[in-house]
């Protein structure tokens, strides 16, 4: 057995020991998510298919797996799902503009060594693939924020049915703020960890501040972090608003009966 199988086995064991049935589900969802990413990548191999469309479809599938399979289909998960998809759509437009103006698609000159011997003229649109990478990196965190806000707002509304629209919205945003800090932290450190080698490279080769900030590889990493943070901030008011709308529509329907 190699290292990865061992690590996977230990993770499964721990998840089952600590999480029981939920643990098994979480482990399976990891596999399913991997499957979706993998299949999405295969579709992106074809030059005739638009990678952004693929990303959008993959996001829907990932949303279904993580919201409807791990939890279940109910009002909370449906509103969380809607909020996630709306945020992803807005982010898609935003990131397309960002990567076109920054020209951060594809590979940087620091990666030349890894690319030697490979043909770069493969007919696939790398700008769109770059957009897809950013969306996929962020979607986990966006969903997490959406589901946390949706479930606490439902709780709030259930315990306190006389609450006003404004107060309910404020409570949703308030919960979102608490998660904002920790989730951006999770992503920041994940990216730092992944690019430790790059940072040491910059230091070792005495890049100046100007060289670093203008280099393709650094600006694309920074764009990834900044877009992810913006996405997490964006999903908070969207989820709060959708839940206010949904809960008050339900309240109105109940009152009319």
């Amino acid at each position: 057995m190699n290292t990865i199988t061992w690590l996977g086995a230990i993770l499964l064991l721990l998840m089952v020991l600590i999480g029981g049935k939920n643990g098994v589900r979480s482990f399976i969802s990891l596999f399913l998510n991997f499957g979706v990413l993998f299949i999405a990548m295969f579709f992106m191999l074809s030059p005739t298919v638009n990678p952004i469309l693929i990303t959008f479809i993959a996001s829907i599938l990932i949303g279904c797996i993580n919201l409807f399979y791990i939890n279940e289909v109910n009002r909370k998960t449906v509103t969380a799902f809607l909020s996630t998809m709306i945020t992803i759509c807005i982010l898609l437009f935003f990131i397309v503009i960002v990567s076109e103006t920054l020209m951060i698609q594809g590979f940087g000159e620091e990666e030349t060594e890894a690319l030697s011997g490979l043909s770069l003229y493969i007919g696939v649109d790398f700008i769109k693939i770059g957009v897809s990478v950013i969306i996929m990196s962020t979607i986990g965190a966006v969903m997490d924020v959406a589901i946390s806000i949706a479930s606490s707002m439902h709780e709030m509304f259930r315990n306190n049915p006389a609450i006003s629209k404004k107060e309910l919205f404020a409570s949703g945003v308030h919960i979102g703020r608490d998660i904002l800090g920790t989730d951006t932290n999770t992503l920041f450190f994940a990216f730092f960890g992944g690019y430790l080698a790059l940072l040491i490279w910059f230091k070792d080769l005495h890049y100046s501040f100007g060289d670093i900030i203008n280099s393709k590889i650094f600006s694309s990493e920074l764009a990834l972090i900044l877009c992810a943070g913006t996405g997490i901030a964006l999903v908070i008011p969207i989820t709060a608003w959708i839940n206010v709308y949904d809960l008050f529509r339900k309240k109105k329907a109940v009152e009319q009966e």
Partner: protein
Amino acid sequence: MNGFLTNRNKPGRKQISFYTVLFICFIVSILFVNHNYSFYDRPIAKVVQANLMEETNITDPVQNKDILYKQQLVAVLQNGEEKGQSIQLVNEYSASGAFDQEYNVGNELFVLLEKDPAGTIKSPAIILDVKRDKYVVLLAWIFIFALLIVGKRQGLFAIASFVINVLILSFALDLYVKHSAVNLLVVCGICILLFTAISLLFVSGFTEKTYAAIVATLLGTFASLAITFAIIWLTSGNGLRYEEMQFVTRPYKIVFMGGLFIGSLGAIMDVAITMSSSLFALYERNPDISFQAIKKSGREIGRDIMGTITNILFFAYISGSIPMLILFLRNASALGYTLSMNLSLEIARALAGGIGIVLTIPIGLYTTLFFIKRKKAGV
């Protein structure tokens, strides 16, 4: 700090002055990056004219079809002795743009000027890179404003802890690079102590629950690292393709381990602070609650967050490999080879992070219980 950035209806004086200062910073920095040519040593040229010269359909050795373009550019130098002078540039780019791109009027480029003995610039000059700084700064401001508008105080704290952590990491790496006797893992270990303390103090202040979360994070990180180390040692890294690591100027195993160390830290902190703040909230709402009840709720909370946080980490790690995978597969590399070359380290990182997350649930639970017990005894 009372009322700072929190009172929505009546903006306090502090708040107004904060936003004024921020707005001034925004204007000044944008003006600066748009007029900072003289701060660069490398010549910068602004494209004023772009003409498409040629368009060629090509097929590479593995039958991929692409289009190659050649464009001729006229650009005006923005700095240096030749400021204001026009130069000719030639740019070749492909439709897929894996390594190149089309330039349009208004783009600013770093160029390499070669002069003949008479001192005139050789034509065409060579394009080195794009000047991206002004867009990077603009994007950073969009991020800052989004976090501040939505997150108010928490947004500000998230930005502050991010900036401080980046500075610490940069300083630590400087030390490491200058003094090669220092072990990277020691540097990372110290960084982790600082990152954890700073980030968690920013998230929830100087409270018992923060201390519990700090202790739980450190225990969780070191426990998961010990397990990962042991596994890599026992299997002698079989299946990990270190060759795929890029930008390696140092012993790659150590660099990988250091990255692993830092990468899962954020997720582990997330688990630790969620556990400790929700359990402390339970205790504060009802100080007579039994430890048995707290344990039960702790397990429930842990089960709920385990899956989502592992998924966040998983997506953040794996997605980055997509462009390389596509490039390999379009170059007719075998699937198994492509996957093991490009994904083995990312998957190992994600799994190690997952182990850390799951381990931190019981660790966080018992650490928080210990702190609650201590508080109870103190009362």
